[in-house]
């Protein structure tokens, strides 16, 4: 049940991130109409990346070094998935420029998702700290 909940959470986070990046790209390229099937492509790439992210997030890292390696591996796997999907969907050409564009786009989504996740964690910690103070104000 927890795995499903986590998958849905990651799917919503990542798909929103991809949607934001797509909206910016469409605006920059001044595109008037969305290419056919783009929304399905966004959902499918969100689904695949959320699936891999759920697997990565299911095991917690023991220390900082392990966490950095896991983040790097995770980011690399996201890039591979999005480059393959992007090529399949006709979003990019498989040349240096196309690949770099996708690597940067994935980085933007990555930062957006991790950033929002961290903000939620900070809010959660604040709420817990407030309750701790209330409940144990007289404890040494």
């Amino acid at each position, binding site marked *: 049940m927890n795995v499903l909940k986590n998958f849905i959470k990651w799917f919503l986070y990542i798909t929103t991130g991809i949607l934001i990046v797509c909206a910016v790209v469409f605006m920059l390229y001044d595109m008037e109409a969305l290419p056919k099937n783009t929304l399905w492509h966004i959902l499918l790439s969100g689904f695949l990346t959320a699936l891999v992210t759920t697997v990565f997030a299911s095991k917690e890292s023991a220390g900082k070094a392990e966490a950095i390696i896991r983040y790097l591996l995770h980011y690399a796997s996201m890039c591979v998935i999005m480059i393959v999907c992007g090529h399949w969907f006709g979003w990019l050409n498989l040349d240096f420029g196309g690949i770099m564009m996708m690597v940067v786009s994935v980085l933007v989504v990555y930062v957006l998702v991790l950033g929002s996740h961290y903000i939620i964690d900070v809010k959660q910690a604040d709420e817990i700290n407030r*309750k701790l103070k209330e409940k144990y104000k007289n404890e040494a």
Partner: protein
Amino acid sequence: MKIIIETPKSGQEDEIIVRCRTLDDKVLGLLAALKAEQSELTGYMDDRIVKLVPKEIYYFESVDNKVFAYTGKGVYEVRKKLYEIEQQYPHMDFLRISKSAIVNVAKIAYIRPVFNGRFEAMLKNDEKIVISRQYVAELKKKLGI
């Protein structure tokens, strides 16, 4: 439920009298918490055997199949499993925070998220202990969030 606190006369012992029509779950829970608070744990350090007061323990940690209690005065081995400690003190402030640790929630100064997606609890003795993400919901529940 009415709560009355009386000061005993000099020479009299402190006592708790429960006056109720039925021993419902709420009253039984209170009694269990009172009993647990009074029940001591045995701690072992080198050749010494020490009686540990549960509420003075900061956390328990399992290391190499041994469980240690961390108190303000030192670290003692307790010859119990973590799940046995959880079962022994269900109404106290002890909470499982990872596969290998139980913390006394009353001894947490504050918590904060850390880099690897977990939370870290800073204890009132300035020690840090990691809270696994999957146990944060239990901590919130314990605090009534």
